[in-house]
């Protein structure tokens, strides 16, 4: 496909932005597990941004907060209330963990929207680890708190007895599908938006090549702006969705009875 389009003078490389490459050295260098890559850079930029907001922003410990301190406090209150409402009072123990997930995802998503940025949350490796961490945490917490009674999560007592084995099978499958949907939802949303922006961006220089560009270039710029606005929304919504699903799963571990 790339070669076909290049013959027309337009270069379509919507997926190039997702290539993991070493930060130092030549582009073709091998990527070992310890290599400092663009992923490393943007992961740590997210950590730095989140820390700057939450630590530097609250430096003053002011009773009447500054603007940045207000944002930090609002994020704190927002996630705290979410954990309390969805997971229950005893879910508050896990608040620092859930808050870390939320801050990391929201910062990675937003930083990924900067031009030339690398979106770490558009990578399956990243979201799979995040989702598996939640999956294992929830499962372990469930068994530690309730022992074998945690399996009651799959035994729907409110259903008629003959239906229960079938429902149990469905519940078990859905339980194991959770980390898959949890990770692919975030990764897919982030990747799709960025790829679409790149595709529209590839159309933008058409005005330099052909007369069609008079029409296509403004349209593609308009489309990029629109999708970008949508992506800003998606960046927050997907962080919210990931976090609230974590709370829902945690609620199952804390209160497995249906």
């Amino acid at each position, binding site marked *: 496909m*790339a070669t076909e389009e290049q013959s027309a003078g337009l270069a379509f*490389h919507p*997926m*190039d932005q*997702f*290539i*993991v*490459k070493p930060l130092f050295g*030549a*582009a*073709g260098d*091998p*990527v*070992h*597990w*310890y*290599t400092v*890559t663009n*992923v*490393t850079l943007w*992961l*740590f930029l*997210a*950590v730095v941004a*989140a*820390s700057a907001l*939450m*630590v530097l922003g*609250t430096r003053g*410990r*002011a*009773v009447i*907060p500054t603007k940045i*301190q207000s944002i*930090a*406090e609002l994020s*704190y*209150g927002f996630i705290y209330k979410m954990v309390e409402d969805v997971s229950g009072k005893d879910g508050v123990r896990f*608040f*620092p*963990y859930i*808050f*870390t997930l939320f*801050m*990391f995802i929201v910062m990675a998503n937003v930083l990924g929207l900067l031009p030339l940025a690398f979106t*770490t949350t*558009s*990578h*399956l*490796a*990243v979201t799979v*680890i*995040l989702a598996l*961490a939640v999956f294992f945490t929830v499962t372990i917490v469930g068994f530690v708190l309730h022992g074998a009674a945690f399996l009651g999560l799959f035994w729907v007592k409110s259903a008629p007895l003959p239906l229960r084995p079938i429902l149990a099978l469905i519940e078990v499958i859905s339980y194991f599908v959770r980390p898959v949907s949890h990770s692919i939802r975030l*990764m897919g949303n982030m*990747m799709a938006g960025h790829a679409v922006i790149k595709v529209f961006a590839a159309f933008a220089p058409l005005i330099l090549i052909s007369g069609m560009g008079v029409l296509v270039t403004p349209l593609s710029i308009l489309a990029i702006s629109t999708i970008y606005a949508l992506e800003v929304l998606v960046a927050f919504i997907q962080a919210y969705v990931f976090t609230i699903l974590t709370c829902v799963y945690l609620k199952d571990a804390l209160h497995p009875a249906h």
Partner: protein
Amino acid sequence: MADTTDAAAAGAHGIEETAHGGGEAVGMPQLNFESWPNQVFWLVVALVVLYLILSRIALPRIASVLAERAGSVTNDIAAAEELKLKARQAEEAYNQALADARTEANSIVAAARAEIQEELDEANAKADAEIAARTAESEKAIAEIRKGAMDSVEEVARSAAAEIVTALGGKADQPAIDAAVADNLKGA
């Protein structure tokens, strides 16, 4: 299997493209599992760092700030209640003082009025007594004047009667004339 070949192709392509400045993705770079250990490793490092920073520094700090704010808001409300109470007490004290002052003023006015009345009465009595004394004195003087006048009239009448009797050629009998004059004056 297909992924590894893809990845290999991507790697090879990347080397080729270096000259043009930048690699080119073949398929989805997300499914290039060669880069997974790298991403997983750095993600875990980043998450642990962020978790430690947030749970050790940021979250306790924000919790304390929020608690402090809630506390100071409660305190402020209590202080406001107290001030309100004080203001009400001050208003009551003011009203009380005002009422006291009014009563006192009234009593002062009444006392002053009574005093003035007493002085006035005294002065009136004194004036009345003086007037009475003057009147009595005047009446006495008038009585004296009247008496003097009557004596003079008698004397003039006697001498006039004696003159008239003499002028008519009679002999003036002084005691008879006196008696007649006194008799006439009495009748008058």
